[in-house]
């Protein structure tokens, strides 16, 4: 048992979620996120993938009336991050997020990446320069932008903006990174870049990625979870899910008979 728990970075335990209109978007979800692994979330539109992902960094707190029930336990702290006594800002300092649509800030490339550090009170120019460079390299963007770090981020292409958002999320050395369909707005080449990047990042952190792209889930992830109507239908090794799923619903979805 002990060996298993040390490998788990976070786990949902009987997680329910209710939007402010009373809709129950998650129904009793329990599943682990293994450390230094990529876990993919798949399922038809509206099944609750984003809702589940956004529980991890308490994004739902931004809108009044949303309600969590159950636990998301983060290790090694062994703390339920959904507990009312937990500060969501502290959670977000350790669990970062990349959104579906690139959402850079109206600032320079440099300031976008430095944002998380500034928010944390870092002001040392040397440290900041190093961190920004490291994060941009980590996001495979450095060579393209190193000569125009002080240009407005909006001038980058969509794929570059998304990698900038990854760099921004990386700069603060998060332990977990959440990706919500990070490549759905990108062309195949930019998509391949980001997939490659996720695989590289795996050695440093734990990744949870929502995707609509079956091939993407199969290519990058170690574990896959299939959700349907707010429920977790099946969770297993990615190989197993894609070659020999345990549930008929999963197989139908993967083979395109459904959804």
């Amino acid at each position, binding site marked *: 048992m002990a060996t298993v728990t040390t490998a788990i970075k976070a786990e949902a335990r009987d997680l329910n979620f209710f939007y402010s209109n009373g809709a129950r978007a998650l129904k009793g979800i329990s599943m682990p996120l293994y450390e230094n692994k990529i876990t993919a979330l798949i399922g038809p539109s509206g099944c609750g993938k984003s809702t589940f992902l956004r529980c991890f960094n308490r994004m739902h707190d931004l809108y009044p009336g949303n309600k969590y029930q159950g636990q998301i336990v983060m290790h090694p702290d062994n703390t339920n991050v959904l507990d009312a006594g937990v500060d969501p*800002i502290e959670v977000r300092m350790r669990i970062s*997020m990349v959104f579906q649509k690139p959402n*850079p*800030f*109206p600032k320079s490339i440099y300031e976008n990446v430095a*944002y998380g550090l500034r*928010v944390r009170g870092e002001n040392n120019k040397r440290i900041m320069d190093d961190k920004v460079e490291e994060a941009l390299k980590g996001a495979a963007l450095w060579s393209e932008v190193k000569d125009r770090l002080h240009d407005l981020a909006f001038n980058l292409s969509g794929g570059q903006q998304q990698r900038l*958002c990854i760099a921004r999320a990386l700069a603060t050395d998060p332990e977990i990174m959440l990706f919500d369909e990070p490549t759905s707005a990108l062309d195949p080449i930019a998509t391949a870049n980001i997939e490659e990047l996720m695989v590289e990042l795996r050695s440093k952190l734990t990744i949870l990625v929502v995707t609509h792209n079956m091939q993407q889930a199969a290519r990058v992830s170690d574990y896959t979870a299939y959700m349907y109507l707010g429920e977790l239908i099946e969770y297993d090794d990615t190989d197993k899910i894609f070659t020999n799923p345990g549930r008929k619903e999963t197989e139908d979805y993967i083979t395109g008979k459904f959804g």
Partner: protein
Amino acid sequence: MQAPVQLTISPRLAKNIRRNVKERMIELILMLAALVAVATTFAIVGVLLYESLSFFKTVSVVEFFTDTQWTPLFEEAHYGIMPLVSGTLTTSAIALAVAVPIGTIAAIFLSEFASHKTRETIKPILELLVGVPTVVFGYFALFFVTPLLQSIYPELPSFNMLGAGIVMGIMIIPYIASMSEDAMRAVPMSMREGSYAMGATRFQTAIKVVTPAAVSGIVAAYILAISRAVGETMVVAIAAGQQPNLTFNPLESAATITAYIVQVAMGDLPHGSIGYQSIFAAGLVLMAMTLSFNIIGHWVRKKYRESY
């Protein structure tokens, strides 16, 4: 080469005359309406220019801009516009010094901090302030704010630019607050989420992300406020004094361009007299000032145009 096939227009695809005529009529009516607005503007500018031209036949442009006195109605007349310009700029500057910080902070509060209910309560009240007749603000400056200021600084004259400027500032707060708030609320939620997801607080998000994202709208609000301040008449006419005075000292009394114009326009000067013409020259300067602020504003807006 093939011989060209003779084509006909089938009645089902032919031009529909009735629809076309109707469309044309609507177009014409719309154009006329637009024309009225444009024509009025041109007419105003035309009259201003025409009457000013007669004015500048008597008074040289150099004298107009360099003489330090403005006494067109006196026996020994002087025609230097600068005392009126200084009064206009000083009162406007005070108004902006009051309205820009308060209006911006109010906008940030309303857009980023206030709950839905609070916002829906405060905004109508703010907008009510816009509906208060300016003459009321004028007397508020004269009979409330100035005495209050005099209790701090007894030498302050009853007519002074400080009191008038402050009240004018209060008057334009709603413009800045309401327009800036609209600009900030137009910033997409995804940008705020990006900031929160980085571990930013509400305040950090408001200051570091939302405000810069809304900057072009906020600047537009400032420009509108400047135009309002420069063109404002009642408050300054009532509370700042009617004596042209070349000074930028807010503790003194002075007249603004607008105050001079109402003062003269309400008197009974004969048409064609130099005093009558002088208000058009003053009006022209006022328009040039407002216009240049608008052009600057337009330019700044373009430079910082937000693109989400």
